[in-house]
């Protein structure tokens, strides 16, 4: 399926690092009767994701909450241990952004956002995008071209609300 306004996302299982280790969460549980932001990026600890994309949502988190967003999720095709370490080292966990993992890239492939670049060792990763989901339906969708971090930033997504 294509990520576009009006579309309903397929249900998916993600893994989130909980207090007692990795936990499975479903997109339907995360989004049912709620307004959430989901932004996806190629990988924890990669340069643009660490220096620009993730910080843009840390800066705008309070503004999203003012617009009725109940949770902000950062999604990557990484495992929960790596995402947990990244959240800690960037301060994202303290800011309230929840890190969720699509380790088998199942959701990422279902929304046609997967890419592979063997020369840099990235396989089945996610392109950069950000969506606002209201009770399971996409109400804003900003998708970046490969190697660009522009419309999927927190600031640009905020303009859509």
């Amino acid at each position: 399926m294509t990520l576009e306004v009006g579309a309903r996302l397929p249900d998916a299982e993600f893994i989130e690092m909980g207090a007692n280790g990795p936990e499975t969460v479903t997109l339907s549980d995360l989004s049912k009767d709620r307004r959430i932001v989901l932004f996806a990026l190629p990988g924890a600890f990669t340069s643009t994701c660490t220096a620009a994309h993730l910080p843009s949502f840390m800066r705008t988190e309070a503004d999203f909450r003012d617009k009725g967003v109940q949770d902000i999720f950062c999604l990557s095709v990484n495992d929960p241990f790596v995402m947990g370490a990244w959240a800690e080292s960037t301060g994202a966990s303290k800011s309230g952004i929840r890190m969720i993992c699509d380790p088998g890239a199942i959701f990422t492939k279902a929304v046609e956002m997967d890419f592979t670049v063997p020369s840099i060792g990235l396989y089945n990763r996610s392109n950069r995008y950000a969506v606002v989901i209201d009770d399971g339906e996409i109400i804003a969708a900003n998708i970046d071209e490969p190697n660009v971090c522009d419309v999927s930033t927190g600031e640009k997504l905020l303009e859509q609300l």
Partner: protein
Amino acid sequence: MIEVGQRMPEAALWRVGPNGPGRKPLKEYLTEKRVVLFGVPGAFTPTCDGAHLPSFIQAADAFRSKGVDHILCVAVNDAHVMFRWSEISGAEKAGIEMLADSDGALARGLGLVYNNPTAGMFGRSRRFAMLIDHCTVTEFNLDEVGQYQASTADVLLGQMP
């Protein structure tokens, strides 16, 4: 599965260099060298981070005094993750080279792949340590999944005259 006396399989390993991540054949690390290679399920996972890697950091000088040219740590992670893990853990300072088996080719070539879906781990490598002399495996210590016993630095060190 790989055995003592066999030659190492072909694989490319990724590492972050001055111009970003790049890959290099494993053979280039092994040719005409004596090499310690240990494999872990994943960067930033509790046992790998809290016990396995530290055991090799502590023993790095002892290995070098026994004529070891390279100490390599591999995991099925990407090069960005391995790079940050090497900085945070102190492995880089200890002279341990942290290499990314990003496509899992080494883990598959060794016959050591396992999955742990509830923890978000797919196509990962079982825990092992080996001594490799001129591309041929001369010691091979493999742990059962979920265990950490056979593959410590001390066990391998004790096998070296």
